[in-house]
């Protein structure tokens, strides 16, 4: 009897709800855009947990540094800037959730993510919601999305390898090149981009070795490379694996230099390989080191003061991205939506990575610098 009554009561409650809801289709929440008072809300979406959390942490530090500087200088139009962090866990699905979340919570712009796939997954939603996004991803796929709300805070990965190939083949005239890359997403991208850059120069690699992303012993691949007697070895792998490869290559008596993109310019790589082994490594990176010029020295000092650790590429990229966004916010009088996107596109900015001038694809910088490890330090290469 009691149960029956409970059922009856709950049924009538539901019925009441139904009547209240009416017979309209669900959806259509009213969004408050262009809120003119209070802080300017910017979302930073990045992996704060999971495998990519170190990237996310660097990004956060770089972006936060820029925001802190602006806030200390009085904000924009007297309004403070509020930077809120969201964890995408490096997962595209979570990214799509967060894209809707920052939309419904009224953020006017987004910084991040460092993971291209997550950014691509978020792009359609952000485009519909008209939220400009400056990402740290560098995959050509970001450009292929074709969203006028998506911007890159650095060059695309093809630029790294194009610049590298130009230096090696066109300037140094080295054509006997061996490839060793891993089959992870980074290594695969490097492999394809560099092979493509070589092909346009009619150079075919002597040997093309692919290793797995968590391999520790590379003697088989390196022995094959040694037999072909190349003049240079292109290396497409993350910091630690790159270091191990170089170290083992030297143990096997391979003396020719290695060449690669950003990971080979990092202290982690230098430490893993050993400074002596890494000597002569050619690096293509938009941010070679902290003491390359005055701006980077100033940034590195501020970074060190704030976080008590050395600045590096990802932090610098995020710093540039945040600076560009904040500059655009200022120049557009805190616009949002399409006007803000246009303002970002129109922003000319001299940053740590070089001078930014965005084109229609959302890319603002089209060259990297070539550096060389000499005496255990990465310095700009003289061509």
């Amino acid at each position: 009897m009691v149960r029956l009554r409970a059922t009856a009561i709950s049924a009538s409650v539901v019925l009441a709800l139904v009547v209240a809801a009416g017979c309209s289709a669900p959806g259509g929440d009213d969004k408050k855009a262009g809120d003119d008072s209070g802080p300017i809300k910017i979302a930073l979406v990045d992996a704060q947990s999971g495998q990519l959390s170190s990237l996310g942490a660097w990004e956060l530090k770089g972006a936060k540094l820029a925001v802190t500087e602006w806030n200390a200088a009085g904000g924009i139009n007297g309004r403070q800037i509020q930077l809120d962090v969201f964890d995408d866990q490096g997962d595209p699905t979570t990214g799509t959730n967060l894209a809707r979340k920052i939309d419904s919570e009224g953020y006017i712009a987004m910084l991040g993510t460092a993971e291209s796939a997550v950014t691509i997954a978020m792009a359609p939603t952000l485009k519909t919601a008209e939220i400009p996004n400056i990402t740290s991803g560098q995959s050509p796929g970001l450009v292929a999305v074709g969203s006028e709300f998506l911007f890159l805070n650095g060059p695309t990965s093809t630029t790294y390898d194009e610049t590298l190939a130009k230096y090696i083949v066109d300037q140094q005239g080295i054509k006997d090149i061996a490839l060793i890359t891993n089959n992870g997403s980074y290594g695969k991208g490097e492999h394809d981009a560099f092979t493509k850059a070589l092909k346009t120069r009619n150079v075919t690699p002597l040997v093309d070795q692919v290793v797995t992303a968590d391999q520790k012993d590379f003697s088989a691949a390196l022995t094959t490379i040694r037999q072909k007697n190349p003049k240079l070895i292109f290396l497409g792998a993350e910091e630690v694996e790159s270091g191990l490869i170089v170290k083992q290559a030297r143990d096997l008596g391979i003396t020719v230099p290695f060449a690669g993109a950003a990971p080979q310019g990092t202290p982690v790589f230098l430490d893993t390989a050993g400074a002596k082994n890494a000597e002569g490594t050619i690096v293509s990176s938009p941010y070679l080191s902290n003491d390359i010029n005055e701006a980077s020295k100033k940034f590195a000092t501020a970074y060190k003061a704030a976080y008590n650790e050395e600045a590096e590429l990802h932090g610098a990229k995020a710093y540039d991205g945040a600076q560009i966004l904040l500059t655009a916010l200022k120049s557009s009088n805190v616009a949002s939506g399409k006007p803000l996107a246009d303002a970002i596109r129109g922003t000319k900015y001299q940053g740590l990575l070089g001078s930014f001038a965005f084109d229609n694809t959302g890319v603002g910088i089209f060259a990297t610098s070539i550096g060389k490890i000499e005496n255990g330090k990465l310095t700009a290469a003289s061509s």
Partner: protein
Amino acid sequence: MRYRIGIIALAALAAWFLPYGLDSYAIHVVNVILIFAILAIGLGLCMGVGGQVNLAQVAFFGVGAYTTAILTTKTGWGFWLSAVLALAATIAVGLLVGTPALRVQSHYLGIVTLGLALAFTNWVTNAQVAGGAEGISAIPVPTIPGVDLSNEYLYYYLELAVFAVGLVFGLFIVRTALGRRMRAMRDDALAAGALGADVPVLRMTAFLLASVYGGLGGVLYAGLIRYVAPETFSIANMFLLLGMVIIGGRQSLIGCVVGAAGLYLVRELLADHPTVAQIGYGTVVVLVVVFAPTGLAGLPKRIRDLVTRRRGGQGEAARLQPFQPYETVRPDESGSQSPILEVDGISMYFRGLRALDDVSLSITPGEIRGIVGPNGSGKTTLFNVISGLYRPTRGRIRFRGQDSTGLAPYRLARAGMSRTFQNLRLFGDLTVEENVLVAIDRNATWHSWRYVARPISVLRRDRDLHRRAAEVIERYGLAEFAALPPKSLPYGIQRRVEIARAVAAGPALLLLDEPAAGLNGDEVRQLSEIVRSVRDSGVTVIIIEHNMGLVMSLCERITVLASGHVIAEGEPAEVASTPAVIEAYLGDSMSSDDLPSVPEVTG
């Protein structure tokens, strides 16, 4: 019942009107949760119900999503056609991933399936057709005339429909013959095989079901997110899925759904507090595994049990009723009495050990044959060879006139052989009634196509099975225990359940391995009554027993084994006086229990 209908109606109404109260972010999260819930149901069916460790569910999910993405973007085929093909592709992959299950089980199977899942993510990262690390974007919106599915609120109803059908179908399987058989296999694959459950087919069915749900989830994902990338199908998400199923309770599909919704919501709520999230997430998993191994779904029952225990038991304890004998069937005297079972020169070697050495036996229909011998004389090995668990090193076996050497246990069971085990092998997580039901069900598993094509006939058949099981349970006096799990019953009753189960399978030949072990005098007397009645109903019985009183009084002929040889065969009195037998017993063991005591037979 009415209560339950009320709850279901309420849940359905709530689900129907849920979108009215949600903003666009919340509805998106709900849509993602529904996809995970569908995946979790599939994993629950494979792992919780079928007992097959499957760490490749995320790969099934990926195959479904990727195939849809590739077909719609590269070939320009419509979404629904691509979806159907994607489902077919997932099923093919599922069956492929399942094949190792035919050879390895438990954690080995986990390692193999995990390896295959890793291979999948690796492949999509490197394959040109799958778009590499960038994945595939711009998947077209699925179309239904008159409904705009790019609207996530309306997409919710599509997902809700698929989810509801999937859940109902899953529950339908779990509660009827197929699911019962899968659960039996999970609890004890050996015993299930000996009762006629075709274990290899069942294992593949478990993976088939997992892949169907995985494929559905994948197709819905492709239509919702309209972008696929390798990271979505990472091992991290596999373990998230695993966490959902374990926290929710893998043996209950509702539990899996609750786990999926709960864990995803927690993850989403804690998105702003990443450090807390990781600690919290880990803590919850550990707490559940330690304090509620049956997951959230098992909690209500545990609480109920606790309350009853506090109150001091439930009024009257269940009592065993007397066995009601079968009607005697007059043996067919006219026909030629060709042996039902012929064991011809069987040898069984385990490396250097000769467990059986050139053993021959011939059993005539309607006989009760006793097999005795000292410990280690090869009695149980002989049973295992006869019932197909071991393939003999040498020799042939003919069962009902057919050569049955090396046939799989379930084939022999189908052909009319049934057995019990020396150490009880009841299906621990099934009730007594379900134990009997598994035995009564004689259909081959491939008949399960009816689940899709003719669900009503499945239900009708199941009702018939229940009726017949009730008869068996009534006859064995187990009515008051029908709904209890056998683990909770006294040893003697468990023995009776196992015999009831073996006889319920309707065998022509019944093998009983030490049925009197651990029984008291009264129970032994009841056992002998049961065995005799079973024989009188037309079943031939072979019995291994150490209780000589029972053997001498029950068996018409006795075969004595010692060190893998047959040392004597004949009528009880005749065998008991054979010098070789006395020597074997005295030479091997001085235990007086094992001595054939002639007075009891003659007395």
